C-alpha cells in the first residue's frame, strides 16, 4: 500500500478567465467564514494578490486551506489538506476531492456563468518531501499508485503527467480525464 503524504493538495483550474478579480474573492471568503459555507474550522482570509503567480487569496482553515490560487499563471481553486488525512491513499484523495469540489461549486454559485471550473483536469501535489522527494523513481511509483486510486474513485482512467523534474519542487501531477469529474462521488457533503 502506498504511504499517504503528510499533506496533499488538489487544484482545479478555471475554464476561462472570469470578470471577477482576485480582490472580489476576499469578501466572498470572509462571508464563507461567517456562514460556514465550506467544511472545516475556517480561521481567516489572507490576501496575497500582490505577489505574481502566488497563492492569491487564501481561506485558511485548521484542516485544509482553500485558495483562489494564481500559481503558474493559472487561476483556480486549490485545496490544501494539511491535517487529519486518512492512512489510505484512495480515502485521502477522496477527502481532498470532496473538499476541492465543495469549494469550486460554492465559488461557481457566487458568480454563476462567470466562474466556471474545468473539471476534466486536476493538479495533485504531494506536500511531503521526506516521503515523496521529487525524483524519477519515487515519481514513477507514486504515479502508478495514484493512477490506480483515481480510477477507483472516479471510475474512469485518467492520464497522469508529472509536472516538474526539478527535485526542489513538490512532486505533482496533472491528472486529465476524458469527461468532467464534477458529478463523481463523493459528494461535497462528505468532505469532512
Amino acid at each position, binding site marked *: 500500500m502506498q*504511504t499517504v503524504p503528510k*499533506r496533499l493538495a488538489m487544484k482545479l483550474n478555471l475554464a476561462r478567465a472570469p470578470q471577477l478579480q482576485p480582490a472580489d474573492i*476576499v*469578501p466572498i471568503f*470572509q*462571508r464563507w*467564514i*461567517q456562514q460556514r459555507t465550506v467544511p472545516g*474550522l475556517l*480561521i*481567516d482570509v*489572507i*490576501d*496575497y494578490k*500582490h*505577489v*505574481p*503567480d*502566488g*497563492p492569491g487569496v*487564501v481561506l*485558511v482553515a*485548521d484542516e485544509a*486551506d482553500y485558495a483562489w490560487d494564481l*500559481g*503558474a499563471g493559472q487561476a483556480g481553486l486549490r485545496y490544501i489538506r*494539511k*491535517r487529519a488525512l486518512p492512512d489510505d491513499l484512495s480515502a485521502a484523495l477522496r477527502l481532498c476531492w470532496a473538499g476541492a469540489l465543495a469549494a469550486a461549486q460554492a465559488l461557481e454559485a457566487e458568480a454563476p456563468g462567470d466562474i466556471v471550473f474545468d473539471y476534466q483536469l486536476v493538479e495533485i501535489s504531494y*506536500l*511531503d*518531501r*521526506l*516521503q515523496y522527494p521529487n525524483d524519477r523513481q519515487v515519481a514513477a511509483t507514486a504515479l502508478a499508485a495514484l493512477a490506480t486510486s483515481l480510477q477507483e474513485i472516479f471510475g474512469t482512467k485518467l492520464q497522469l503527467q508529472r509536472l516538474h523534474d*526539478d527535485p*526542489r*519542487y*513538490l512532486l505533482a501531477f496533472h491528472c486529465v480525464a476524458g469527461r468532467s469529474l464534477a458529478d463523481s462521488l463523493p459528494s461535497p457533503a462528505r468532505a469532512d
Partner: protein
Amino acid sequence: MTTWKERLKDEIPLEMAKLIDTYEAQMSLRQQGKMDEKVFAEARLRKGVYGQRYDNGQRHDGVRTQALAYPSEDIVKGPDTLWDAPGMQRIKIPYGGLSARQLDVLSELADEYADGILHITTRQDIQLHYVHIDDTPDLMRRLAAVGITTQEACGNSVRNITACSLAGVCHDEAFDVSPYADAMTQFLLAHDDVQDFGRKFKVAFSGCAGQACGLVKMHDLGLLAQSREVAGELQRGFTVFVGGGLGTVPHQAKALADFVTPEQLLPLTQAIARVFARLGEKKNRNRARLKFLVAKLGIDEFRSLVEAELAALPHDPRHTAYLDNVRDFVYEPAKAGLQLNGAPLPEGFDEWYRSNVYRQVQAGYSVVTLHTPLGDFTAQQGFQLADIARKYVGDNIRLTVEQNIVLRWVADADLPALCRDLRKIGLGDAHAGSIVDITTCPGTDTCKLGIASSRGLTAELRTRLIERINLLPDAVRELKIKVSGCFNSCGQHHVADIGFFGNSRRSGNHKLPHFQVVLGGQWQQNAGNYGLAVGAVPAKTVPAVLAALTERYVAERAEDQNFQSWVKQLGRKEIKAMLKPFMQLPTFEDNPAFFSDWGDSRVYTIEDIGVGECAGEVVSLFSMEISKAESTHFEALLALDDGDFRRADERAYRAMVLAARALVRTKYLDVGDDNDRIVNEFRERFYDTELVYDRFAKGKFARYLFKRHAGQPSLLDEDYAHQIIDETQLFIENIHSAEQRINGVIVA
C-alpha cells in the same frame, strides 16, 4: 518510516541538533502538562516560534465573535494561546546574508509547512506564517542542515543582528562590517549572558555615518564602523551607541564609546549584556528595554557600570579568535567584473537601472535590488531566484531592512540579461527604494497587537502610486513611506518621511480604523531623527491625505528643500490644519465603507486584539534553565523506551548537571558548562552548606548527582537506566524545592 531527524543527523551541527532536541522534548512536556505554559512560551519564542492573531480561539467575523474550536483546545502553547492555532516561524538571517542553497531550503519550507509565501522583515529575517507548532522541530532541522538557526529569533534575547546590505561593496563605508556582524552573531547565540533579559535586545552594524542602511541609532546596541590612523597605520574600530529604539516611546541611541577596537568589541558587548541582565527592568515589560535603563541611569553612569563589568569579565578566547576569520572574509563573485558592453537593453532598462542598481566600489560590479511587494515572495520565486543567483552572483544574496532582496557582485555586463531574467519571475520591477517601495509590518493580517491593516493600506497605496509613478516629481518619488499596524513601530514609521501607524476612533456606536500620521522622520544618518505624530485620520482617507501632503510639498518647497525641512518649516499647527478636513468622521449609515479596513470586508472591530508576544514572557533565569534539565530528562525517558540504555544514562546524567547548573547560576552566573566545575560549585555552595538539603531526605538527592558524576557504571542495563532516570527526577524536584526555599537568600 524515516524522519527528518534521522535523515539529517549527519548534516546538522551537534550543538544545533541538541538545542532542537531539547525544544522538541519541551513540546512533549507541555503537551503532557508537565511544563509551565509561561516557561514553555518563552522557550518557544526563543526558537522563533511566535503566536498569531486569533490563536486565543476567537475571531470576529464582522457580525459576531466566533469561537474557533481547535482539536486540542485544552492544550495551550502559552498563556491564552491554543496549541493547534497556526503561528509564525521567524528565521534569523544574520546581516541578511543568504546562499542560493539556503534560499532553496527556505522556499521548500514555505510551500510545505506554511502558505507558500516567504516574508522579509525589517530585521532581515524571514518569516513563515500559518505554521503548525508540530512542524517546527523538523522545520528547524531542515534549516540547521544548511546553517540557518531560529535560535533566539524571538523572546527576551538577542534578535537577528542586522547590517547594511551594501557592506563590503559600498563607496561610503569605513570598512566591511559583515565579518564582525557574523562574529557577534556566533558569539552571542545561546550565550549564557543573554538568557536573563527582561526584554529583547537588538544589535545593528553600519559601515558609515551618513547613509541609512544600518540604522544604528535606533538600536539597543549600534556599532558604527570608524577607522583612524595610529602610527601611520589605518586601524579599524567602532563607535558604540546604546539605548536606541523605536516602539511607543522612541529613543535616539547615545554614544557609549567613540572608538572600540575589534579586540574590544565582543567583551564590551558581553559587558553591556551583563549590565542589562542585572539591572534592566524585569517586571514591567513596558519599561524593560535597554533604552529605559540608559535613560534612568544616564549614559555616564551606564558607561561606568559597563566598564566595571568589563574589568571583571572572565577571559574568553572567543573574544579575539574571530579576528582570523575577519582577515579571511572574502567574497566569491560568480563572474569576472565586466562593464556594460553595448548589448541590447530591455525596454525600461534605464529606469530600472536608475532605481535598482548601485555601482559597487569594485569596478565592473553592481548591486541589484529586487523589490518585493510588502516584503513577500513565493516559494516558486525563491527557487527561480536561487537559480538566477547561481547564474549571476553565486551566494551573494542579502535581505534588506526595507524588506527587499539584493544580489551583489553582478558583473555590469550581465545587467541587461539579469533584468530580463528577474522580470520573468516577477522580481524585475523598477522603483526600488522609491515612494512605492513601502515598508510595512504584518498588522492586523497576522499580528495579535495589530489595530489597523498596515498591509491592506500599503497594498492600496502601492497600487495607486504605481499607476502614477511616472507622473510624480522626483522629490515625491524619493520619499520614504513606512506603515505600522499599531504604535509599536515594527514598520519603523518614526524614521520615514511619511509614516503611519494604526489606531482607532469611535463614531456613534462603531469604531473606525485610523492611522496616525507621522511626518519628518529621517531615514538617512542611520535613522538620525524621528518624525512627529501630527494627527489621526480614518484609514480610508489616507490616500487622499498622502496626495494632499505631497502636492503641497511640491508646490511650496524651496529648490532642493527636503521633506523633513519642509515639514519643520510648515509647523505642526499648519499641518494639523491641513489634515483637519480629513479627520471628519462620517456616521456608519452615511458611509459604511469607512467602517471597514483596507483589504478587509468585515465591519471593523478591535475585539480581535490580543496579548502580543513581542515582549516574551517574563520568566526567571532559573525557570528557563531548569526547563532544559526537565526536557533532557524527558529525552532520557525516550531513550529508555527505545532500549538505548547508554543514551538514557547519558541524558539522565546531563539532566542532573543542568539542574545543578540552574541552581548554581542563581548565585554564580559564570559557572560555565564544564561538568566538574558545575558539580564542584554545586557541592560547595549548596550541599556543604546544606542549603539543598531536603527536610527528611537531607542530602540524599544531591548524592545521586555525585555518585553518577564519579563515574559511569560498568553495566548499563534496563534496570540501571530506570534507576538513574528515577533518581534524576527526584534530583530535579529537589532542586525546584531548594530554589523555592532559598531563593530569597540567594537573590539578596
